[in-house]
Structure formats: structure tokens, C-alpha cells
């Protein structure tokens, strides 16, 4: 149903396909694809990886910080602050449909009024960069790569709403409030001549699924190289068991809830009775 939408970040690999010689379409769990070299901008390439390939949500989960690290090969920068290179990292969670509602006053009471449904809102979206992204590359380049909250693609929405722009920015503002959308222009730190690192905090309310981590290397405002990795967020242990049962066998799950409550009630009465 989303065939009509042109997603820049999905199109890019297609454009570069001849250069990649098929390597970009590597298996999901394989190592990050080999760096690609854009002709005419030197030999530098970026390689990056993520500290955690798999995040398991268990009962003690309160959010997690992941580290994205990498290096620039064939760097011709002499000092870490030379400013020759810029790195932008984008972490994207799986898309999900969301409904945005605006409250209006009806007969003195605040009720949900106009609503807008967005089909494909990234459940998580973080941009980390070594400098403000607008200083690194042109708006056009950023837009084509899907970098930055102002250009974020929320998927198809129920069109025709006059407040569409205010709705769109409300989605971004609310997601930022939940720490699910993040922009950090000091998030990428260079260590030495060619190493860099970035940390992203995934909050407790992250969705499960596959997260894509893109690392873009810019030189003089031009994309010099990119590297893509991914990580998987899953529920594990007891949490996975409960979640699976609740959605795949809800009747049994409901009975289990009732049984546990009744047992607790019985035990409580037995422990406290006075005769």
C-alpha cells in the first residue's frame, strides 16, 4: 500500500547499485557491508559497528545505551579536529501506524477532536552528528538521505486536513518528548585521527524489531562513504513468554491471570484468618 511513496533512503542503494556490485544486499546478520568508494572524492571509506547486535527486553529493562563506533580508512586528516570529515549517524526503528488526536473544547469539556493517522512512523529515530547537520551538507543532500527530523517521512496520512503541518510537527514534538526521536549535533565524537564514536540511548518504551544504523561520512559537504548495520530489539525470557501468550493464546492467558489472582486471594485469606 505504500508503493506510491518515494522514500529517499530506500532509493539511494538502488542508485548506487552499479558501484556496489551487489554487496549492499548482504544477508541481515552478516557483517556490515564493505565500504563503498565514491569515485572522485579520494579513497576514504567509513566502517562502523554497533556495540550490541541484540537487545533483550527483560523484567529489569529500563532502557539501554548503545555505542556506535567506527573508523575512517585512508583518512588524510592530520588532527582529530581538522574538520576535513564529518560523520552523521542515523538510527531508525521499525515503522508503526500511529494516530494523532487533537483535543477541542465541546460544551466545556476537552474531548478528542480531529485525528490524523500516519501509516509508517519510525518507532525510533535518532540523528547524531559531529556538527549541526545543516553545516555538514546541503538541505537537498540531507533530504535525499532522510537525515534530520524536519524531513522525516511519517508515511501516508489521512490527507485533506487543513492543520496538516501543525499535526506533522506535533507528531515530531510528542515523539521527541518520549525520547523516541532524538537529534544530537555533538553526538559523534572523534578520537584520534580516524576513530569516532557515538552513543544513543534507547528509552524503556522502545518498540521491538529490527533497527537500522546508518553511518554517513561527509567530506566537504559531499557524501564520501556510508556503512550500514542493524540491531535487533526483542523481548526475552519471562517477558517474551508473557507477551507471546497474551497475543497468541489470549484465552489461556486470561484464565492464567484469573487463576493467579484467585490463588493470591485464597493464600491471603488463609494466612490472615483468625480462627
Amino acid at each position, binding site marked *: 500500500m505504500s508503493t506510491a511513496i518515494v522514500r529517499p533512503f530506500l532509493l539511494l542503494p538502488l542508485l548506487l547499485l552499479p558501484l556496489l556490485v551487489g554487496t549492499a544486499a548482504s544477508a541481515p546478520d552478516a557483517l556490515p557491508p564493505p565500504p563503498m568508494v565514491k569515485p572522485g572524492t579520494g579513497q576514504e571509506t567509513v566502517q562502523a559497528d554497533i556495540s550490541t547486535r541484540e537487545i533483550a*527486553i*527483560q*523484567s*529489569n*529493562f*529500563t*532502557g539501554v545505551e548503545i555505542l556506535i563506533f567506527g573508523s575512517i580508512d585512508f583518512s588524510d586528516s592530520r588532527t582529530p579536529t581538522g574538520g576535513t570529515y564529518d560523520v552523521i549517524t542515523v538510527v531508525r526503528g521499525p515503522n*508503526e*501506524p*500511529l*494516530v*494523532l*488526536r*487533537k*483535543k*477541542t*473544547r465541546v460544551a*466545556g*469539556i*476537552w*474531548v*478528542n477532536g480531529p*485525528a490524523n*493517522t500516519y501509516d509508517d512512523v519510525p518507532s525510533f529515530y535518532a540523528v547524531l552528528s559531529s556538527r549541526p547537520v545543516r553545516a555538514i551538507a546541503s538541505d537537498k543532500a540531507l533530504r535525499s538521505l532522510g537525515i534530520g527530523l524536519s524531513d522525516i517521512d511519517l508515511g501516508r496520512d489521512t490527507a485533506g486536513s487543513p492543520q496538516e503541518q501543525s*499535526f506533522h510537527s*506535533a*507528531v515530531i*514534538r*510528542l*515523539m521527541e518528548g518520549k525520547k523516541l526521536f532524538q537529534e544530537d549535533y555533538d553526538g559523534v565524537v572523534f578520537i584520534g585521527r580516524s576513530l569516532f564514536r557515538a552513543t544513543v540511548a534507547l528509552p*524503556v*518504551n522502545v518498540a521491538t524489531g529490527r533497527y537500522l544504523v546508518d553511518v554517513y561520512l561527509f567530506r566537504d559537504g559531499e557524501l564520501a562513504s556510508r556503512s550500514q548495520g542493524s540491531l535487533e530489539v526483542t*523481548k526475552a525470557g*519471562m*517477558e517474551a513468554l*508473557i*507477551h507471546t501468550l*497474551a*497475543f497468541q493464546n*489470549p*484465552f489461556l*492467558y*486470561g*484464565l*492464567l*491471570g*484469573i487463576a*493467579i*489472582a*484467585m490463588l*493470591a*486471594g*485464597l*493464600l*491471603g*485469606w488463609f494466612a*490472615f*484468618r483468625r*480462627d
Partner: protein
Amino acid sequence: MFQIYLPIAEISVNLVVMLGLGAAVGFLSGMFGVGGGFLLTPFLMLSGIPPAIAVATGANQIVGTSVSGTLAQWRRGNVDLHMGAVLIAGGVAGALIGVLLLKYLRELGQAGLFISLTYVVFLGGIGALMLWESVNAIRRQRAGKSVSARKSGQHNWIHGLPFKMRFPRSRLYISAIPPLVIGGVVGLLASFLGVGGGFIMVPAMIYILRMPTNIVVGTSIFQIIFVTAVVTLLHATLNHTLDIVLALLLVIGGVIGGQFGVRAGQRLRGEQLRALLSLMVLGVAARILIDLLVKPSDLYSLVPMVGGS
């Protein structure tokens, strides 16, 4: 520290806070002989649990606390099984309607509003009536007159209805229709508000059915087990909104708190208890009403699409 992740609500809560919330509500429910759902569900919503999950999980907690309550009442011979069965039959039908209604309202995005409005109307109405009645009772008592809620031997319109049934424990011979209707209304409220419905059922049984007060409390809490169990099952099956981990925390706190509440309640007089309870009911109603009237700090809200693929 002590944070625990809730698998269905998908948030992390403090273990101690949730146990404490269960215990506090359990204490009050034991003290006043009510399920306590009308306090628990709004408190859960205030602490960030999504309304639909608060309703389903609240119902599950009441199953546990009403089991211990019923056992205590049962030993005193206060449960009318015949009346309970008729109330449950009506309650199950009402619960089914309520769960489907809530599902439909969630899809419209108006579930929160309707839950709040129903709370305001019912808590406000019942609380005001109870306060009026108990203050009058206290006043009459100070004047030295005897207090009796039940005017036995009086006949009213209830006795003109067909399908009469005998309820030996309550010493009643009345039509099955009023208990069925009362059960249905309570079942509807139970599924819609995540409450047991004791605060509706107790006055209805005393004033409409004219049952003896001690039998009313025992029978009410007995049928609440079944109605909230059905509500829990329906919400779990149709809406996937039951969080079993949260329910476990609340029920442990609730059962323990409830036992202490029963003891505290025995030191207070009936009219004083009712007056205190009515003030609390009115307080909750006022709090919910204020939330509806005051302009929210953010007019927009973002929720996952219900029933979406």
C-alpha cells in the same frame, strides 16, 4: 532500583510503588467492604498506565481481593447463592456489552472520555446520595432515634413483576427481573470502568431489592468475583489489554492491605464509614471532572492505532 518492566503496558514501573498502591486500595476496600476498583483504576491511569490496560488489569486485581473477602463473608453465612447466581447471569451479559462498547470507543479515540464521564456521573451521584444518607443517619442518631435502612414488610412496585423466585437466605420472594437488570448494569460498568461495581450494587440491593444489609455485602462481593473474572477474560481475549505482571503486584498488595482494612473498619461505626467512603468517592469524581474541564497542557496526543495491521 526496584524497577520492573511490564510486558503488555510496555513501560517500566516501580515495584514498591505498585505494591503500595495495591495495598492502599486493598486497605480501603477491606475497610469499606467495596472492591476498590473505582480508586485503583483512576490511580493506575494517573501513574501512566494506558486507560484500557488500567481497566483490564484493575478488574483482574479485584478478582483476587474479592476471593479473600468472599471467604471471610462465607464463613459468617452472608452469601445468598441464589441471588448471586441471578446477579451473575445479568452481570455476564452486561460485561460482554461493555467490553465490545469499550473496543468500539477505543477505535474512535473516545474511550478515555467516556470512561472519565461515566466515572464522574456514577461516582458523583452515588457519592452525593451516600453522603446525604449517612449524614442524616448520624444526625438522627445524635437525636437519639434508631436507624434502620431496611423497612421490612413493605411492598413496592418490585412485587408486581413476573418470574418470581424464592431467595431463602435473603428471606425474599421477588421477581428475577430486578436482580438480572441490576447485575447487567453492574457488569456493564465493571467492564467499562474496571471496577467491581459494589458501590452501585450494595445500595441497589438494600434500597430496591430490600435485602438484609449483612447478606448484601457478602452476596455483592461473591458475585464480583465472577463478573470481574469474566471481564478480565473478555479484555484479555478481545483487547489484549491485561498485564499479568502488573496484576500480580497489585493483587499481592491488595490482599495484604485488605486484611488490615477489615480490622480497621470494625473499629468504625457504619454511618461514619459510609460518610468517609462517600467523601472519598466524591473526591475521585471531582479529580476526574477537573481533568476534563481544565485545558490540557498539550492538546495533541499520540497513540498506537487500534486494530491496525
